[in-house]
């Protein structure tokens, strides 16, 4: 298997277009956390035409609701949550300049279309590997919606955060392509 690709946030079109399904990638830079409730609030702002609490241009959103940090740690376990629940909101965010998302599981066709159209990428991190992934997270700052607890928006600084490209900007889909190779059932 090929080596890791190392990328830095914010992402440019050039970096995004170089990523292909199945690539193992190490991310260094800032990630923003947001899951169900935070997405709902962001979307309400967009619908009202109001500014967002974060500038998402070129950024990556990580779908995570971390466990609380133990004393001496910056964060508790912090693995990805299931992405499809955010599908309804994702295309609009890509339209506004979001370059990537990190979660687990398949995305719907509307998201895959948006990735092509707006040159963006969907990564998966290993679900249930929260203790391992927390090691790559070096700092955590609250950004918005602190009342949401684990669901609030935070800015994480990560070093060599391990992910795999699941849907690229060229229409590739790891789930369908790889499943076919190993499927014996009809």
């Amino acid at each position, binding site marked *: *298997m090929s080596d890791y690709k190392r990328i830095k946030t914010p992402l440019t079109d050039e970096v995004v277009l170089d990523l292909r399904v199945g690539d193992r990638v190490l991310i260094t830079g800032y990630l923003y956390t947001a899951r169900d409730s935070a997405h709902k609030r962001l979307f309400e702002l967009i619908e009202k035409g109001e500014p967002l609490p974060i500038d998402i241009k070129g950024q990556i959103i990580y779908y995570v609701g971390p466990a609380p940090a133990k004393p001496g740690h910056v964060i508790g*376990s912090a693995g990805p949550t*299931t992405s499809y629940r955010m599908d309804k909101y994702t295309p609009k965010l890509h339209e506004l300049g979001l370059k990537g998302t990190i979660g687990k599981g398949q995305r719907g066709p509307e998201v895959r279309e948006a990735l092509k159209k707006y040159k963006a990428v969907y990564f998966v991190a*290993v679900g249930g590997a*929260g*203790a391992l992934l927390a090691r790559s997270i070096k700092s955590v700052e609250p950004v918005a919606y602190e009342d949401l607890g684990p669901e609030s928006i935070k800015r994480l600084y990560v070093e060599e955060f391990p992910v795999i490209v699941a849907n690229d900007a060229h229409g590739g889909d790891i789930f369908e392509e790889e499943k076919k190779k*190993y*499927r*014996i059932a009809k």
Partner: protein
Amino acid sequence: MREIPFEDIVEAVREMAIVSNSILPPEMYDALKKAYEEEESPVGKEVLSQILRNDEIAREEMMPICQDTGIAVLFVEVGEEVRVKGGSLKEALTEGVRRGYIEGYLRKSVVKDPLRRVNTGDNTPAIIHFDIVPGDRLKIRFAPKGGGSENMSVARLVAPADGREGIIDFVVDTVDKAGGNPCPPIVIGVGIGGNFEMSAIIAKKALLRKIGERHPDPYYAEMEEEILRRVNELGIGPMGLGGRITALDVHIETYPCHIASLPVAVNIQCHANRHVEKEL
């Protein structure tokens, strides 16, 4: 009557909450190791190596294997000759969950109302299944369950005529549709019989069985093996990224049922297959 102090139960449950969330049962870890050796897909192998490394870090640092430390599910067998001194059994179990999740830095993932969704802040209430048994012991089995895999679980009342084959197809189809969402490699609990609610409870109970342990009835043991084989032909693989290993094991539990019905429930368990038990 044997008396068990309220605080002893609280402490036992508190500890179980923390330990179950940080230390994977050894046979589950071994099964993941074997999966790593057998997986042919390079991406699948990468995923499994991260899962193994994660389980080791969690154990060493006593931190949660997964940030979704679940809703606490307890199966409690209460001996007929046991009495709790200083409070009620249900309160003691609840207090143990509360302290475990707060003092153990576990994530609080329970909302007070299913539609208005305000977090209770201490991960209570738990889901507690009581059973009254002969004797003077109190046996508690603690299994935190995350949302990702629980959400992919399904219960259905199939026609009795669908029989064994119909059930196998239903289970395989349920796993196929779930794809990578329940964090494969998964363990599959299948409850067959009883009625609507009983099938779901025994499907969950089936997940408490040790990996590799077959149903005592050869008829169902063979069915477990057939389901496992067929599920691993789906190609879903670790985290749904393709591969040979989609499930590590299948456990069936059965119960007698009405002449007109055949209830079947499929409870999907992710690779963070956490459970511990303790007898007081």
